[in-house]
């Protein structure tokens, strides 16, 4: 195949929409524009039928019942609804939530909000491989614990948490288990029953669907879970999320789920092969480290630190042709590097030196070849320019230097 530029390797941020998804959505903008809540005429019926069908497509991907799917505007809203909704609904049972330090901001900041409202939150540390310690999790449970919120796959490292072991512990103690499945759903098999998940958030635009639509899975049986609505209004979505349904978006999410169901197995195999090749080639560079567990990891993700080279400076060497993310945050006011990488025990220097690769459905072998070459060339060039690299090569202990901190 011919090399197509620019190369997009930031699929953890967002995925391009699959043209087949767009095709499914198009009739629902102009022609079939009805409100799915209009019960008394054909425009409404057509829209409702489309939503029902999408609900089935979504449910099938995660082995849920269609009635357990609550459509939202995306994963952030679903995270908020799950955590705040459970906190309010189960306030008579307790006020304690357990989460982890490597969660997405949509979960962490929602938990901070819970603390402001008087709730108690335990933030579990992760081990060097990015996984939580199950014993620590169990020890953190009190008689006031109502929810465990641990993500499925991490957005920065791709590390997959021990979901089934977590849900077993949750069940044993009668605590609900919520997982943010944004990076995992549609990429690897997720089965809410086999996995023992009570609530799960996910999003359309991370699985080749449209932006602005997502879902919250809410278990209906064993146990029956309810969340207090965070948006008041017409009582849509079984009263848990009011607001006129985004019919074209929901149709797109449904189609995206259907495509993932059929294609994710072969796609995961293809992408993990490519990812491993990329990783192996880049690891030929000295002082290069993969961040997080390589064993428990999403098939399309790799997070690598190139020591003695700063991530943003590194990206500048090829960002005309390759789109990537870095754990460095030279542009942010705080200048703080990735909190996820720091939670894995990485020093700030290694966190500043990281790149995140997120491969996707449209990534080609030619693009991976191009990326390997571009990154290797740039790392070598920048190391020649790096005073830290020179010190390392001369055997100077960089940690022993008294750096002036700003």
């Amino acid at each position, binding site marked *: 195949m011919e090399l197509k530029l620019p190369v997009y390797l930031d699929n953890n941020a967002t995925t391009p929409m699959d043209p087949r998804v767009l095709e499914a959505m198009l009739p629902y903008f102009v022609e079939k524009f009805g409100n799915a809540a209009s019960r008394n005429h054909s425009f409404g019926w057509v829209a409702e039928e489309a939503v029902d069908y999408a609900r089935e497509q979504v449910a099938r991907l995660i082995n849920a019942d269609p009635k357990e799917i609550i459509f939202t505007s995306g994963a952030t809203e679903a995270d908020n609804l799950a955590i705040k909704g459970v906190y309010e609904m189960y306030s008579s049972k307790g006020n304690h939530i357990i989460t982890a330090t490597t969660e997405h901001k949509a979960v962490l900041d929602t938990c901070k909000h819970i603390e402001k409202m008087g709730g108690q939150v335990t933030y579990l540390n992760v081990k060097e491989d990015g996984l939580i310690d199950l014993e620590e999790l169990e020890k953190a449970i009190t008689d006031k614990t109502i929810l465990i919120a641990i993500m499925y796959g991490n957005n920065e490292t791709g590390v997959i948490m021990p979901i089934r072991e977590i849900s077993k512990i949750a069940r044993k103690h009668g605590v609900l288990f919520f997982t943010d499945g944004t990076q995992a759903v549609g990429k690897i098999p997720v089965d809410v029953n086999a996995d023992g998940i009570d609530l799960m958030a996910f999003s359309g635009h991370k699985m080749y669907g449209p932006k602005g639509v997502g879902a919250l899975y809410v278990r209906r049986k064993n146990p029956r879970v309810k969340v207090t609505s965070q948006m008041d209004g017409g009582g849509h979505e079984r009263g848990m999320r009011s607001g006129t349904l985004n019919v074209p978006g929901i149709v797109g999410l449904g189609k995206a789920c259907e495509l993932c169901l059929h294609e994710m197995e072969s796609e995961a195999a293809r992408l993990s092969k490519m990812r491993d090749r990329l990783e192996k080639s880049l690891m030929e560079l000295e002082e290069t480290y993969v961040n997080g567990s390589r064993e428990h990891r999403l098939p399309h993700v790799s997070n690598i630190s190139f020591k003695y080279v700063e991530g943003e400076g590194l990206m500048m060497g090829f960002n005309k042709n390759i789109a990537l993310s870095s754990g460095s945050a030279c542009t942010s006011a705080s200048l703080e*590097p990735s909190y996820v990488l720091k939670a894995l025990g990485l020093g*700030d220097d290694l966190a500043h030196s990281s790149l995140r690769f997120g491969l996707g459905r449209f990534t080609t072998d030619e693009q991976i070849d191009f990326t390997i070459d571009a990154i290797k060339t740039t790392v070598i060039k920048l190391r020649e320019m790096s005073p830290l690299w020179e010190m390392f090569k001369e055997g100077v202990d960089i940690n022993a230097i008294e*750096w002036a901190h700003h």
Partner: protein
Amino acid sequence: MAYSDKVIDHYSNPKNVGTLDKAKTNVGTGLVGAPECGDVMRLQIEVDEESGLISDAKFKTFGCGSAIASSSLATEWLKGKTVDQALSIDNMDIVEELNLPPVKIHCSVLAEDAIKAAINDYRVKNGLPELVAEKKAH
């Protein structure tokens, strides 16, 4: 955030990357920043003892494109100046020349710090008192 053409040019074709012999008395070395902050600059000047002019300047930088460009530009400006003239290089001149956005101003401050640190190293080596620079916010 897009980089200015001048930043891209200095990043792609950095001027005066390298190392001078820091053991020489007419070489001043400034090492500023910290790996934890994502920016480390090492700037060196070599002073021609007869003319008093900076005859050579070299840098190595660990950092973003703007940090690399700021130090590359600084070495260019240093060459041919007297040590006293070099002291007058202000970080805002670098900001202006490279069109640095507000979030990157700290890169120019670091470059100015590196110049001052190199000059001080040179002064101390040559029996002159260390200059106390006013502290700029990073």
